[in-house]
């Protein structure tokens, strides 16, 4: 169950193999392979590539920004197999007939990529411009990426059209996560059939596991198996946050058998997102963790949109009071009211992601909420 037909990590020196140029034929391969975006949204890659390919003077942007604190897979990929990512970027540029090609990167990995680009002199057909990505949660959001590449601040912008039709300076733009690019390079090299059904994904597993880190596994692997890849639980677990800080809390009893795939997680109202798992031990209070994460996310708001700028700090403050066992029975309703107020109201989906995570916490930690409102906490029992 843990075998991936075409793994990304621990693979050979890609530089010694020729680039499998194939033009637009790659689009059909991507469709057959069933590759979906690995930045979090999970959109079918071939659809985006095909939409950009029919446009005039297209742009390709490789997105290496990884603002999610619980994710490390993109920087792992960029530092261990930079040539596979750069091959994918070249092939994507060729598939859409790109005129300009960018790679958007956090500072710490830029040195690796600059060295890799020097090593591959003469290999590429498209010149790649590196653009620095700031270390903020929303820096990797598609419209923020485009704003940064255009020379502005990495902040989300109002969406009036589709980026694939009108993105960077009004041109058709393909923004693709770096893991997606690396998978594209593998599909180009080995064909789509090996990927289909055996497609791998990178997962960052952290929290109370023996060996936190980045692991590669087949899509649909039960979350329990993924935790075992990371050495297994370090102590008794209470819940798992699936999909990152914008993700969904699952009680451990549901999580162990839940398949890590879009279809497998749908019944739980969850998605794999960018493959992030955070294991919560029974010794930590889920409400305290939720308050901490919400506070971080409120601070990471771009503070451009009123509902997000006002609503997220209010939600974080209410959750903090709940976590602190303030005996005010109105607090859960207040959280629910604030969640309804910020959902769907912003230029980007940051408020929606926070709402998804907070609502799941209110469901999964319902017993803990009752205890807190009575001045108790499960993590303090027996002390």
């Amino acid at each position, binding site marked *: 169950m843990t075998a991936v037909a075409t793994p990304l990590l621990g693979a050979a020196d890609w530089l010694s193999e020729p680039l499998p140029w194939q033009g637009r034929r790659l689009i059909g391969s991507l469709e057959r392979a069933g590759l979906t975006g690995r930045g979090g949204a999970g959109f079918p890659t071939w659809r985006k590539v095909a939409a950009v390919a029919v446009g005039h003077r297209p742009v390709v942007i490789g997105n290496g920004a990884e603002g999610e604190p619980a994710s490390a897979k993109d920087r792992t990929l960029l530092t261990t197999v930079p040539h596979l990512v750069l091959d994918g970027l070249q092939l994507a540029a060729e598939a859409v007939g790109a005129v300009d090609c960018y790679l958007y990167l956090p500072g710490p990995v830029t040195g690796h990529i600059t060295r890799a680009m020097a090593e591959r002199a003469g290999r590429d057909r498209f010149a790649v411009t590196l653009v620095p990505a700031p270390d903020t949660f929303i820096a990797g959001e598609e419209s923020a990426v485009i704003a940064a590449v255009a020379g502005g601040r990495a902040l989300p912008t*109002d969406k*009036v059209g589709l980026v694939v039709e009108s993105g960077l300076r009004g041109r058709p733009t393909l923004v693709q996560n770096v893991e997606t690019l690396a998978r594209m390079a593998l599909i180009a090299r080995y064909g789509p059939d090996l990927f289909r059904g055996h497609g791998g994904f990178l997962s960052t597993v952290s929290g109370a596991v023996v060996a936190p880190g980045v692991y590669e596994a087949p899509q649909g692997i039960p979350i329990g198996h993924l935790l075992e890849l990371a050495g297994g639980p370090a102590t008794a677990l209470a819940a798992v946050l699936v999909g990152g800080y914008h993700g969904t809390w699952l009680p451990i009893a549901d999580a162990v058998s839940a398949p890590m795939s879009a279809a497998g997680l749908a019944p739980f109202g969850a998605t794999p997102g960018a493959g992030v798992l955070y294991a919560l031990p029974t010794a930590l209070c889920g409400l305290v963790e939720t308050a901490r994460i919400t506070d971080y996310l409120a601070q990471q708001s771009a503070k451009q*949109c*009123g*509902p997000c700028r*006002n609503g997220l700090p209010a939600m974080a403050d209410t959750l903090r009071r709940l976590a602190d066992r303030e005996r005010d029975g109105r607090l859960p309703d207040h959280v629910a009211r604030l969640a309804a107020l910020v959902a*769907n*109201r*912003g230029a980007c989906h940051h408020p929606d992601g926070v709402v998804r995570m907070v609502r799941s916490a209110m469901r999964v930690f319902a017993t803990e909420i009752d205890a807190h409102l009575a001045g108790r906490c499960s993590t303090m029992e027996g002390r």
Partner: protein
Amino acid sequence: MKLHIDWTACDGRGTCTELIPEVLAQDPWGYPLPVDGSRQPEVPPDLESFTRRAVAYCPRLALRLR
């Protein structure tokens, strides 16, 4: 038609919520709150002219009909 709100431009002046309260209520901070709960609220045909006025009078030019 649907009403699009540019949240990065809107600063909650309240003109729109006064002109088309059937479409946009006001949240506790003064920002427009689509009554139907959607991202881009549907504008009924009989409110289209009022909505066009709301679009034109928005001091932040944050609204558009589409």
